[in-house]
């Protein structure tokens, strides 16, 4: 009797298990808290289980190429060469699905300075090049007429580990300073001309907090959660903008949003936008059937529906977790891209 009941239970459990759809993804660490929230809510809504491993953007891209995961996630869009390599290998293009916006805050430690510091892009580049060495340098003073800047030496703090945060920050500096572009360039790890390196956001923030006169950069979320002072950065429209959910979202409100969403938002032309903002993406094959990780159409359909949910209903979870929502223009473009998703040639959404 007990035995029969047990066997029935086992049978039911295995049936339920077989009927359940599971998707695996890996990549960027920056949106990890947000994705964890998305996937736990989505599991409760639909029963589709999504595993996400935050192994870093680079790893995510590599695993997607290796077809071990259903989707990758990256803080940087694939380069044109990588796009071409992808299409050549799989005979189908990669689709970038933006999910949220993040920003890099310029954090500092200036004892006695209460009001937020103001910096322009070129000044920031000069500071990180080691060309402006004292806080009371006339160049800094000129942008902060009201502040009494201490005669402290500037200590530059940067990330020592490779990171998407560094990518966004150095890409911004490369856009606003020809000297930076020429001498350093941009990437996830760069050859810093000066300064101390800290591992992770917490490493940089720790060093900045500990060192009077330090200036560094960290994800906005990290600066907000840990109440570290951050600077207002001058955008292309000439306005000093503090990073906030509103100003970061505003950064993506640009007129000619590209169809593939691979747009760099640093030094944005948007008049109210914070200039060191960036999108973060989920990457999938356009024809999901070309990715060996998909075993059947049901899985591919679940993936397409999940993405559709993320850019619509999922967006409401962004702001409570300090990620900016996608602006309407980005959602519209992405809807089109999602309608283009296929499984062995057959469309998945209508």
């Amino acid at each position, binding site marked *: 009797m007990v035995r029969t009941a047990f066997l029935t239970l086992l049978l039911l459990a295995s049936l339920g298990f077989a009927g359940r759809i599971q998707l695996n993804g890996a990549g960027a660490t920056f949106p990890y808290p947000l994705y964890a929230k998305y996937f736990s809510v989505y599991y409760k809504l639909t029963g589709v289980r999504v595993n996400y491993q935050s*192994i*870093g*953007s*680079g*790893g995510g*891209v*590599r695993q997607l190429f290796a077809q071990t995961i259903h989707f990758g996630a990256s803080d940087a869009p694939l380069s044109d060469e990588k796009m071409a390599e992808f299409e050549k290998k799989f005979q189908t293009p990669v689709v970038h699905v933006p999910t949220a916006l993040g920003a890099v805050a310029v954090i500092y430690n200036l004892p006695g300075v209460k009001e937020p510091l103001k910096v322009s892009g070129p000044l920031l580049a000069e500071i990180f090049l080691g060309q402006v060495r004292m806080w009371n340098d006339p160049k800094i003073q000129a942008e902060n007429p009201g502040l009494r800047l201490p005669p402290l*030496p500037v*200590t530059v703090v940067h990330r*020592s*580990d*490779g*990171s*998407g945060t560094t990518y966004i920050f150095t890409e911004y500096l490369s856009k606003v300073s020809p000297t930076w572009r020429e001498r*350093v*360039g*941009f*990437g*996830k*790890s*760069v*050859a*810093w*001309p*000066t*300064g*101390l*390196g*800290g*591992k992770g956001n917490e*490493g940089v923030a*720790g*060093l900045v907090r*500990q*060192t009077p006169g*330090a200036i560094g950069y960290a994800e906005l979320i990290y600066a907000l959660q840990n109440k570290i002072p951050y600077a207002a950065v001058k955008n292309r429209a000439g306005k000093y903008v503090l990073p906030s959910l509103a100003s970061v979202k505003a950064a993506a409100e640009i007129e000619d949003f590209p169809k593939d969403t691979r747009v760099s938002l640093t030094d944005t032309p948007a008049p109210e936008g914070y200039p060191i903002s960036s999108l973060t993406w989920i990457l999938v094959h356009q024809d999901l059937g070309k990715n060996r990780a998909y075993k059947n159409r049901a899985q591919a359909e679940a993936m397409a529906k999940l993405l559709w949910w993320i850019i619509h209903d999922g967006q409401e979870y962004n702001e409570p977790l300090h990620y900016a929502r996608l602006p309407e223009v980005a959602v519209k473009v992405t809807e089109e891209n999602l309608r283009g998703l296929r499984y062995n040639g057959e469309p998945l959404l209508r």
Partner: protein
Amino acid sequence: MPNWLYQRLGDRLFAAVVVLLALGVVAAALAIVAVLYFGGREAFATFGFFGFVLGRVWDAVRGQFGAWPPLLGTLITSAAALSLAFFPALSTALFVVEFSSGRLRETVAYLIDLLAALPSVVYGLWGIFVLVPLVRDHLELPLFTWAAAHAPALLPILGPPTGIGLLSATLVLALMIVPYASALARDALELVPQSQREAMYALGATRWEVIRRVVIPYARAGIFSGVVLALARALGETMAVTMLIGNSVNLPYTLFGPASTMASLIANEFTEAEDDLHLSALIAVGFVLLLIALVTNLIATWMLRRMSHGEGRR
């Protein structure tokens, strides 16, 4: 198992298990060497072995990779930490064996062993929150201001007094390796026969003379083994150094300023290295680190053998 089978097979089985396990370890070691070599081949092929080892530029953006800055950082921190740690380690060992007894002896020995059991991230945190402010405010800043006023020529050697850098990393590293050197030295000192000491005392020697002329010479092979173990530990230490050294590959290094070691460089850049050459260069750094460990070990074995010969002749 029947008795006859046991007698026939027992020892063979035992031998087979021992040999298999031992070979397994050897195979794992060889596999590590192979993986590091083949993983790093692309970097060695691109820059040449010596071009890579002696290259002074590490720039992932331009795809230029030279291991010299982190190599130099590893050598400097390890050598400096070892020379800082040697006398304290020997002194604690001498204190435990020669100057204390009973509960005091047990407590001190236990505390030193405990230092070895602390995770290195704990050393890193302690370094950041306790040592760095201390070093900055009471050592680096006073020295720097003094030099600025009286000896400006020293300033380029001292470097920026931020507390994070070569000096703090070396100090914490030294503290971390003391227990390794000390534990082996202690064991060696304990093995010195009491009769040796008594003979010396009988000749009217003072305690200092006994230690200098009998105890230490007798135990020197053991003491030296401790030094080698400590050095190996210093060469490979990653976490605490990464947290304290400031992670800069810009030469020349300064006393207070940031630097970089091979282990910390790998730990920093490995996770996000997308470019094949970058990844290969990081693995190649691991290979060079392995070579350095190998060379140190060979030298150590050779010196140890010479020392034991010396003992025999005595």
